[in-house]
Every structure is written in C-alpha cells, then in structure tokens.
C-alpha cells in the first residue's frame, strides 16, 4: 500500500455520543442534511422540549403560594430533586432504553457560555437542525393532569408560565411558547388566558392530554370562548401514563408508549367531535400534538361508521367526523414511516398539505429531524415547505423569515468532534 504526500488523508477521530455530548455534535449529521436537503426552506418546529428538571429550582422559586413553595424547595433539596412536587414516576421513565439513547434527559455542556443554559442549549439544537422557530413544551409536567392534587397543578402551572415568559422566551426571538393550562381547574385556566393572551411570545395555549377530564364539559365553555376570541390555537399535547388500568396490562415501556400516546388524544378528539364542539366553537383552532399520524384515519373511519348508524347520539353534527377532523391541525412526530404507501394514504386522507405541522420533539428519544419530511418521495416541494414551516406560520401568525444561521456556518463553528 502506498500513499503519496498529496493524497495523505485528513483523519480525525470522532468521540462516543452520550448524555453530556454537545448538541451540535450529536446532531452533526442532521446539520449536513440541512445543508444538502433543505437549506432554503423556512422551518418551524412546533414541539420541542425543555428538560425543566434541570431548571426546576428556578421554577419552584416562582411558586406564588408560600406553603407549596416551601414543600417544593424542601423536596428539591432532599429526595425529590428535579422531580419535586411532580407525579412523574422516575422508575417508570424508561425512555432512554437503559441509557442507549443519550439525548433523552441530556445534560448540555454549557460551562463557559453566557446566558441562560436552556437558551444556549435550545439555540444549539435549532441551529444544528436547521430551524427558524421552535415552540417549547415542558417534559415532566406533561403528566401533571394526573396529579391527585389539583392545587399542585395550579401552582406549578403559574410558576412554569412565569419562568417561560419572564426567564426564557424574551432571551431569543426564535423561541416561542404555548401557555400551560391547569385544565383540572378551569377558572385558573381562564385567569391565565386573560393574563397572557397578549404576550407576543405566547403563540397559543396547551392542555397536556394525559388526564381524565371530558373536554366537552360545560365547565370549559367560557375558556373555549376566551381562546376563540384570542385567535391563537389550542394544542392538546399527548403523553403517557402507565398507571391507567388498561395500560397496566402492558409489560414493556414500548407497548405502553405506543398505545398511550395515541390513546389520550383519541379520547379527546372523540368527545370534541361527538359533542359537536366544532359547531359550538367554530372559530377555535384545534391542534393535536405528538400522537403521530396513523391514528387519524383509524379514528375518523371508526367515528364516521358509527355516527352514520347512530345519528341520534351525535345530533349536533352537520357533517361526518372525518370532515371536522380534516379542519383540525396535527403535528408530525413521531411519524410512522415503515410503510410509505400507508403514510401516503394517511397524509392524503387528512389533507396533510395544509393541516400538518412539522415537529421534532427534540431532545426526546423518538424525535424526528426535518429530513423525515424532505425525504418523503410522494410529497411535492410545496407540500414539504407547507408542512415544514408555512402551515405553522399561518396557524400561529409567525413571520415567514429566515432567522437561523447558514448550516455551513454552524458546521464551521462546531465541526462535530465531541
């Protein structure tokens, strides 16, 4: 084997990727995809996550009730740590598959950087993935709807919303938030909508779907009217809950996760439609988050089938459930794509070209890069652009402007060595 001096290769070693790797190194291949596949697209990520457990003390400090603040901070300093006051069961949080997927629960190395560590870490993720805007959701709080103490949901919702609007969102115009609504206590939801409806960084409202509240209940009608009035969307973000008696039969995290993330949104969409909420609140913009796509044609067909046979049980409807469902919006992740024929039919079924919004779910374990959309062989270029950003810009009233640095620049600043 001979190598001449001019063909001496440049060799560098790449380190193992783990929980403490720099986001830009973990996502280096995604940045190259951005450069090669969608550099000129406008991209909005409608669902990414704050690992708020890392900043939980900051949130607890903002609790406006002396008693819960004292209990929370006490737990924080003792056994509760980043889960103080929360109902998340750490032993059942098996997302990282025994640490195999290191970015779940990651700890970004931000030593030596300026600014809030969450903002630093989020910016790295946005630049590396090629995103112009990112909507941030909480993580551990996603199951707070199942907390047995409604007042804890209320104090944490108030504190988290303050943390988001006062500490994080003003630091970067590319970060946007949806207001957390403590849905177990409707009157506090109303108070919070009133308080934050004009905050320009709050581009909508969110209910964490993992809960047992019937969404058609009259206790929510005032809230829906208020949200309708703001013109900002209402997003139901799905989640899991292994404690649900049906799911307690499932012995693997994957089984429970696969079913429960579609389960809660199916229940809420069913109640929403069968009780004719789209007729009663025709202007409200409903967005269903993090259930993937395969459930949409399943549920629509089930409901159409039964509504035709039992119209007396859904007398408020003037159209089939599938027609109402085609007027709602959905986020893409975790997009099932093991059978592209099925995916194409699904997207056609609910008019994905206008109703689907790209979401990454970064840094959670089953996240999707923008290339999951650009790689689809059956979508037109316009459909890809709509799904990746233009639909979101319309729904959330965001300016269609490039805010991210060039991918080449990102790669130059951090060439991905770890």
């Amino acid at each position: 084997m001979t190598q001449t001096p001019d063909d001496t290769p440049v060799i560098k070693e790449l380190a193992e990727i783990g929980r403490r790797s720099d986001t830009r190194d973990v996502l280096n291949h995604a940045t190259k995809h951005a450069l090669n596949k969608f550099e000129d697209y406008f991209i909005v990520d409608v669902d990414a996550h704050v690992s708020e457990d890392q900043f939980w003390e900051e949130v607890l400090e903002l609790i406006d009730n002396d008693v819960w603040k004292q209990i929370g901070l006490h737990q924080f300093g003792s056994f509760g740590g980043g889960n103080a006051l929360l109902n998340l069961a750490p032993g059942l949080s098996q997302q990282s598959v025994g640490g195999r997927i290191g970015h779940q629960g990651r700890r970004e190395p931000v030593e030596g950087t300026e600014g809030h560590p969450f903002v630093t870490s989020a910016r790295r993720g946005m630049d590396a993935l090629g995103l112009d805007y990112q909507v941030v959701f909480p993580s551990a709080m996603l199951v707070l709807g199942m907390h047995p103490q409604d007042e804890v949901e209320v104090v944490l919702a108030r504190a988290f919303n303050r943390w988001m609007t006062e500490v994080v969102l003003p630091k970067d115009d590319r970060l946007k938030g949806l207001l957390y609504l403590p849905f177990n206590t409707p009157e506090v939801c109303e108070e919070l909508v009133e308080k934050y409806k004009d905050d320009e960084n709050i581009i909508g409202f969110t209910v964490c779907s993992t809960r047992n509240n019937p969404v058609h209940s009259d206790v929510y009608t005032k809230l829906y009217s208020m949200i309708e009035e703001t013109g900002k969307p209402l997003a139901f973000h799905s989640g899991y809950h292994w404690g649900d008696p049906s799911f307690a039969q499932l012995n693997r995290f994957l089984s429970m996760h696969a079913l429960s993330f579609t389960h809660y949104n199916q229940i809420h969409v069913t109640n929403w439609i069968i009780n004719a909420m789209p007729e009663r609140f025709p202007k409200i913009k409903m967005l269903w988050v993090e259930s993937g796509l395969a459930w949409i044609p399943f549920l629509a067909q089930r409901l159409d089938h039964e509504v035709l046979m039992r119209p007396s049980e859904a007398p408020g409807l003037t159209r089939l459930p599938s027609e109402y469902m085609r007027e709602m919006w959905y986020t893409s992740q975790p997009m099932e794509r093991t059978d592209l024929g099925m995916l194409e039919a699904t997207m056609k079924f609910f008019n994905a070209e206008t109703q689907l919004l790209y979401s990454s779910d970064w840094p959670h374990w089953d996240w999707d890069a923008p290339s999951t959309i650009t790689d689809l062989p059956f979508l037109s270029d316009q459909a890809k652009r709509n799904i990746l950003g233009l639909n979101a810009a319309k729904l959330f009233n965001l300016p269609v402007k490039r805010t991210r640095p060039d991918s080449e620049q990102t790669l130059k600043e951090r060439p991905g060595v770890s």
Partner: protein
Amino acid sequence: MAAQNIKPLRDVNIGKYDELSTRERIVLDIDGKEVGVYFEAGEIRAWLNVCPHGGGPVCQGQIMPRTVQDVRPGGKSGGLGHHPTERNIVCPWHGYEFGILSGEHPIKGDVKLIPVAVRVVDGDVVLSV
C-alpha cells in the same frame, strides 16, 4: 456524467493492529467519510457511520450486549437476559441496534449497516474508503 462524481476507493492505513485492537471501537472521519472500526472476538469489522434509519451517527453510539428472551419448557417466558457473547452497536439517535459482526438489525435483518472493506496488511489496519 454521474461517473465523474464517483471517486475510486483508496487504501488508508489507520494504525497498528496491535494498538488499535486493544480498543473495542474507533470512529474516524477520513476526508469527510465517517467509518466505525470494531475489534470484536478476534475479528475486525468496519461500518459506515451512517444509520440506515435516519442517517444518524450510528457508530458513535454505545455498544451493548444483545438482549434475548429465554423461553423455558412449555413455552413459558424465562424473562430477559443479556446474550453471553453477542453485542450490538446502538445508534444514539433513536436506538436502532445492529450486531457488531453481522451489521444486521436483530429483528429485521435486512435493515443493515453499510460495510467498509478492512484488512490487516503487515500488522497495519487498512481501510478501503
């Protein structure tokens, strides 16, 4: 012409076998081409650092024992266990796993890593990239 873009493979010496083989895995970027080289059970394998799922940096993930489910007489479950010898490469992006030696996904064998030719020449490890 597409053919003009295809560079011929060339041999690249990445170091002494005796030294490298004490490490179980090394991932290299060679002029922009990323390759993971594995030393496992006295054998060498080299795989492209590009995951067939979503193009993730598969070789930069963890190496884990293959998980197996024992079945006891009568079809009863013996529970989960680690395979005594077989180990998998785990993609750090979403957890797809591949046998170090086979490059195959343990459940769907046609989901595979892309091999890179590797051999030992006069005590040196040589890749064709």
